[in-house]
């Protein structure tokens, strides 16, 4: 619950020059920022540190927040920047995505290999309903980072393509192709899991 900062509105810093209150606008998004941080770092401790750093930075930059923009997106942008900067320092190398300019998100949307594979057994993808959240997270965590960010922001946190583009600092077309590729990869993984669990049987093996 977004309890206001104990210090209240009278303290310098809570309300910026545009009149936006940090405790009222930014603090209530802590669950969402935490979820995003958790999917970025993959570990609870690291995620909590990242949330704290994100909020400190956001608080110090509060003057730059323009009311009217979505505060949640603004916080995600800061969170991502803090995360990337921290990782640069620890020198862990990023997976390199082979993204070509010819990536046509619509072509990716059109192809649906898992749908084709499960067509006989479960044409409407009922098996997705049986999959527990923990497995969904596990599959998300295995995505390449760039796809993962797009999927989490769009599909878990409900940002529009335009908002995701802003947070990730990429064009909307790239958001679409990363999102659609990430979804296809997730479907493959969840399908594999459903096969293993026997939620669905592999028609191809018969």
């Amino acid at each position, binding site marked *: 619950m977004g*309890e206001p900062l*104990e210090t209240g509105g009278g303290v310098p810093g809570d309300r910026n020059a545009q009149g936006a209150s940090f405790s009222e606008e930014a603090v209530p998004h802590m669950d969402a920022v935490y979820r995003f941080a958790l999917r970025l770092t993959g570990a609870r401790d690291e995620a*909590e540190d990242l949330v704290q750093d994100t909020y400190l930075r956001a608080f110090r930059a509060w003057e730059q927040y323009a009311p009217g923009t979505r505060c949640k997106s603004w916080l995600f942008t800061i969170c991502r920047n803090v995360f990337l900067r921290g990782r640069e320092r620890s020198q862990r190398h990023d997976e390199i995505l082979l993204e070509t300019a010819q990536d046509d998100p619509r072509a990716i949307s059109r192809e*649906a290999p898992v*749908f084709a594979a499960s067509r006989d057994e479960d044409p*409407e*993808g009922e098996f997705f309903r049986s999959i527990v959240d923990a497995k969904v997270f596990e599959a998300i965590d295995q995505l390449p980072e760039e796809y993962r960010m797009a999927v989490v922001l769009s599909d878990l946190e409900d940002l529009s393509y335009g908002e995701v583009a802003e947070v990730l600092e990429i064009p909307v077309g790239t958001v679409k192709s990363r999102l659609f590729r990430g979804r296809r990869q997730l479907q493959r993984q969840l399908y594999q899991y459903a096969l293993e669990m026997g939620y669905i049987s592999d028609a191809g093996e018969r």
Partner: protein
Amino acid sequence: MSFFKALKRLFSGTGQHGRTDGTDASTSSGSPGETAVAMIPCDEASARLFEYLDGELEGLSEEEVRQHLAVCEACYPRVQFERHFLEALQRSQNGGRASASLRERVLEALAEDERPE
């Protein structure tokens, strides 16, 4: 019908007075109440499917997909498939919450930060 007659008919049909007899009303634009949108092929609907489900299409583009999906039985399973998938993702969103201790820690750090030195 002779070729010339057909041509003449074709041209008269494009005039202000609208369609000639026998043309299919559902393929021409017009009557604002019941928008008759030309049917797009399955391939095109499925290419736009994610954008449609994400609420990112607008205007004619959205209308075309909506109308296609409303009548196309072949596309129905695919739409359900993608819907069930996206629902599984959305459902998992409830999974994570900032703990009370994290909340407290962050608020303390903020209070600390704004204290004038």
